């Protein structure tokens, strides 16, 4: 079991790199492989990742998403899943190379630093599990949204500077990028909405009826929730156009990373549920 886990832990970043390379080559016009091979590799990568989580949970006898690095790995897995969903809906895989490259980098970190031993603070109850899973789903949605925001700004820059190279030719157009960004933000927003409510319910269950809104974790989560809500519905907010939403999504991605660090920080000011 341990050997299989270790093998998968090493193989996952490699598989993500391979999937990113195949998607990157396809959009830059240097591909000699078929679209089917890309799909097979991506499915195999997600399959291997899911297997790794199952084996990890089995070995630990509890939810495998405990601590910073397994959570990062779960966000990577969910983000790629989200990307597949939005890309399929938009029928555009042009952002695949970028999304999968970022996924590969974070999975490399998660595989490199991630402990296999269970976290002492691991969530045990069903509500805790739902809270963690929805939060991971939210983080993944927000990550995909932020990445598409970055791609929007990159494409916009190329258009504004009249550069008509590879970025111009192969990334999704501004409208598609904006739709993918908003759709992913909406997924994230919904996940975060459920996660926050479950968190509040958990606080009640623990007898701590008053949720401390001054707690950085709670306050940060609420702010991220409002922030991505605004991005998800930016098309309906006058004056909050795609460019501003893209800037906000990018900034949100940074805020999300900081928020994750805050949640898993060893500094004792946070109060994990």
């Amino acid at each position: 079991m341990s050997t299989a886990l270790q093998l998968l832990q090493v193989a996952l970043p490699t598989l993500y790199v391979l999937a990113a390379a195949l998607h990157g080559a396809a959009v830059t016009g240097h591909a000699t492989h078929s679209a089917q091979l890309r799909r097979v590799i991506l499915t195999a990568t997600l399959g291997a990742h899911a297997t790794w989580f199952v084996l990890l949970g089995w070995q630990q006898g509890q939810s495998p998403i405990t601590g910073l690095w397994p959570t990062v790995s779960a966000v990577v897995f969910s983000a790629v899943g989200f990307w597949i969903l939005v890309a399929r809906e938009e029928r555009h895989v042009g952002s695949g190379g970028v999304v999968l490259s970022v996924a590969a980098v974070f999975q490399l970190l998660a595989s490199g630093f991630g402990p296999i031993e269970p976290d002492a603070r691991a969530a045990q109850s069903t509500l805790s599990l739902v809270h963690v899973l929805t939060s991971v789903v939210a983080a993944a949605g927000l990550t995909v949204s932020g990445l598409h925001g970055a791609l929007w700004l990159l494409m916009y820059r190329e258009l504004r500077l009249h550069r008509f190279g590879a970025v111009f030719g192969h990334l999704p157009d501004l409208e598609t990028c904006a739709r993918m960004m908003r759709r992913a933000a909406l997924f994230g927003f919904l996940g975060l909405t459920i996660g926050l409510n479950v968190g509040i319910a958990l606080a009640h269950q623990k007898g701590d009826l008053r949720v401390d809104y001054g707690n950085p974790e709670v306050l940060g989560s609420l702010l991220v929730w409002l922030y991505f809500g605004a991005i998800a519905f930016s098309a309906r907010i006058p004056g909050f156009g795609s460019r501003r939403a893209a800037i906000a999504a990018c900034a949100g991605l940074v805020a999300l990373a900081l928020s994750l660090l805050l949640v898993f920080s060893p500094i004792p000011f946070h109060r994990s549920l």
Partner: protein
Amino acid sequence: MQHGHTLVLVGMSHRVASVGVRERYVVASNDLPANLTALRSIEGVHEACILSTCNRTEAMVATDRPELVAATIRSHLFRNAAEQETYSWSGAQALFHVFRVAAGLDSLVVGESEVLGQLKRAGDAARECGAMGPLLEALITRALHVGKRVRSETELGLGTLSVARVGIEVAGRALGEFRTKRALVIGAGETGVLVARHLRDLGIGRLVFANRTLERAQTAAEEFRAAGIATECCGLDELRTRITQADLVVTCVEGQSAVVEAAHFERRAVQRRDLPLVVLDLSVPRAVAPSVTDIDRNVLLYDLDHLSRVVAENLRDRSSAADSATSILVHEAHEFLGKRAYQQLAPMVGTLRQDFETVRNETLDAVAGAEASAREVQLAHELSKKLLHITLERLKDSTKRLRPEEALEHEYRRFLESL
């Protein structure tokens, strides 16, 4: 004497000058007669034709003083332009250039077919002014034939390429699907209609034609209404309102001053847009003031110089097709020059024909005299006709051999290297 004229071409194109320079030297259709008359008045110029499009302004003349007229034409058409912003070719090189222009090989978008119509109209205008002659008539006719041949026999003809189409593709990278978009086309002329057709093919949601004369806009709009596209028309006085409502603004107008200025944009409306407002300026001289980009970052402006960067990619893709056009161009130039050389021998051919008839009649008189039968006369006539035909064919071959096709191809390659 007219068969001894040399073709001289002086011009300025996107290859050597930016749109900012080119727009100063555009010859508007109204000014063509005056300019053609001025060219004809240059000493040594016998025929003249001016081709002025958004990509180029070129004067083609038939002259017996090729070494002198180029400088005069340059100072007339391209006053104050830097030497490197113009070019001049004569003889076979001018011929190669005209054929390349007709084939779309010298166009901003390689292979575009608009230039064929523009060349034809340039010939018509020169003919109306009485500036055309045998050399330019033959040249334009042959160039149009070459243009059609290259497009039908090589891959250059694949797809309907034009600057308008490239511009719309660029707009598509910003706007995404056109189904839900509103396009404002300023100018209901040929390019405006071409732009609208591309937009129709991409399923544009709503189309607005703005033109100085509303009647022309309405005429242009009919085609698109018939295709089921919501099409509206307006005059230029409504530009401010129409630009505010539009997602894409395309200008294709002829004029000396900017039609669209910063004052036509409502800053607050531009700032509140979800996607940027794309403005394509396909006019030469430019019809959109460059200051419109200062209104807000949500305005993306593209003129022909910007679009030429997209075309650089197109050029790479089509270089192999352009290579395959070489043999057609060289062959046609060889045929044209051979025919021209033969035409220069016209006085000699006339004398030869006269001599054959004289010899035939003298021989007939000497052999049969007044008692020559009808069969003998017929025999003499047939014999002299056949001998004359053989002689003229040999003459024709020898004129072609004066400049073999291989040598011409070599000359063409050198011409390409000098571009």
